[in-house]
């Protein structure tokens, strides 16, 4: 289900338990939250801490593109 609130932006937001981190191949062009985007990439499993943001993910889509 799309998040009604951005977990990164809202201190009160509940952290979703079905979240997946997506690392895109190119710089992201920001889209409104209520516009569906379809993305594809390479699935990576296992814990990873993003050195730039400290964000921990258990699974990721890397090298992702979207339309």
């Amino acid at each position, binding site marked *: 289900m799309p998040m009604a609130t951005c977990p990164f932006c809202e201190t*009160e937001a509940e952290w979703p338990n079905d979240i997946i981190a997506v690392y895109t191949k190119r710089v992201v062009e920001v889209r*409104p939250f209520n516009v569906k985007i379809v993305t594809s990439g390479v699935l990576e499993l296992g814990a990873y801490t993003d050195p730039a943001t400290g964000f921990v993910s258990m699974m990721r889509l890397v090298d992702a593109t979207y339309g």
Partner: protein
Amino acid sequence: MKTIFSTTSLALILAAGGAAAQDIPQANDAWFTAGQEAIQAIIDRETNTGRAKNVILLVADGNGVGTNYATRLYAGQQQGKLGEEHVLPYEEPGYHSALVKTYNINAQTPDSAPTAGAMNTGVKQRFNLINLGGDAIHDDCATVAGNELTTFAEIVTGMDKSVGVISTARLTHATPAGVYAKTANRNWEDEVPEGCTAQKDIASQLIDQMQAGVVDLAMGGGRRYFAGTEVTLDEGGKGHRPDGANLIEAATGMGAQYAWNTETFNGLNLDGSAPVLALFNDSHMEYEADRAEEDEPSLAEMTKAAIEYLSNNENGYYLEIEAGRVDHANHAGNAKRTMIDGMAFADAVAMADELTDDADTLIIVTADHEHSIAFNGYCGRGTPIEGLCYDVAKTGEMHSDDLVLADDGKPYTVVGYLNGAGSVLTKGEGENDYSGSRPELTQEEATDIDYVQQALIPKSSESHSGEDVAVYAKGPWAHLFDGTIEQNVIFHVMNHAVTAE
């Protein structure tokens, strides 16, 4: 000519007036006989003026008349019915009912804190406050002292009754907190502002009320608000309390039993000899649609355990049961999870009714407020309530196979929201540059469990509405629920029922 016509009309009216109901052409129609049976059931309804030993208040958060309508149809359709004709357990003729005005002292659109407070103290309260009088100010700790109200839980504790509170939301969330907490801010779940000494945080107040012997059983979510940030919790998460206090250990240290999953829930001793604290999730319990039986009990299972536990007190009990996530799914604009949690609530009502005696137990079923949910038309009978609107068929009952199309040539769902994350307006280049058109939609997409309904006004979280909710009740003094009442009247029926001579 005109005179003749009038005379003929009069003759026809007299003839119809003289015919007995059993002689009229529709007398054997199934709708006609069902209508006769319905009024007979109302005539047969008993008026119980005895004293209530037990009071059970069941609240589905955000389950106004509209949301409840959606759940009714969905529940019926899951049983293979068309849906519209379905009767939820609390809609049966044994229940008296009324409409409830839910506004707060200073809010046309209510929030769940003062609404729970109104039901638990008998007076309307201010937006975002719980169980403080009308002179208290939101977020102002200095206005707490002197404004604390007495709760129904405290009143019945004085009658040596037991008290239980159950929620699928966090136990520190507004509706369950209405049973035991007094706070100038509903969000002070595990901390209060620096320098605030007039009240404790909500989680601490629950443990204090357990220690004081007011609350005997509490089951729900919100585990992280009961332990410090350094504490690793039962399911691997971390505590959230900045003061580092471990309230779970404090509870068990004073003799309470603690459960955190289905297995430990099943291991609870329900003989009433030791208080119960059950925290099944770090935050809210799961939506019913996502709940795993081995992970968390259902609302009906918690209801069963609570009634078994509380029934050990020969003086009776007060139990508040909240289906907290009907509200959350509505906020997300996700009608399907709303309806599935609504069904779990209906199961809990049926369980409470089954395990109690109407002669001595007042059961009240209501909601705290409605949402900005709305329903499109004109859909044929049996249109799946969670999906697209099908046209009315000319013959038979079932809808036609044609989808109803809007003027933009696209189909639409029965359920929509006036605002929320599903807004069809999207942000453009400018700050206030919102525009849009409705996306194409298939039945497969619309009935997906994760589908977010289309909405009009863009908001990250869909809002409550001030529309009425219903109240249904059976047992001692349930017949006092009639007409259109203020929400705080619910307390007065409970209070009258437990004190009636």
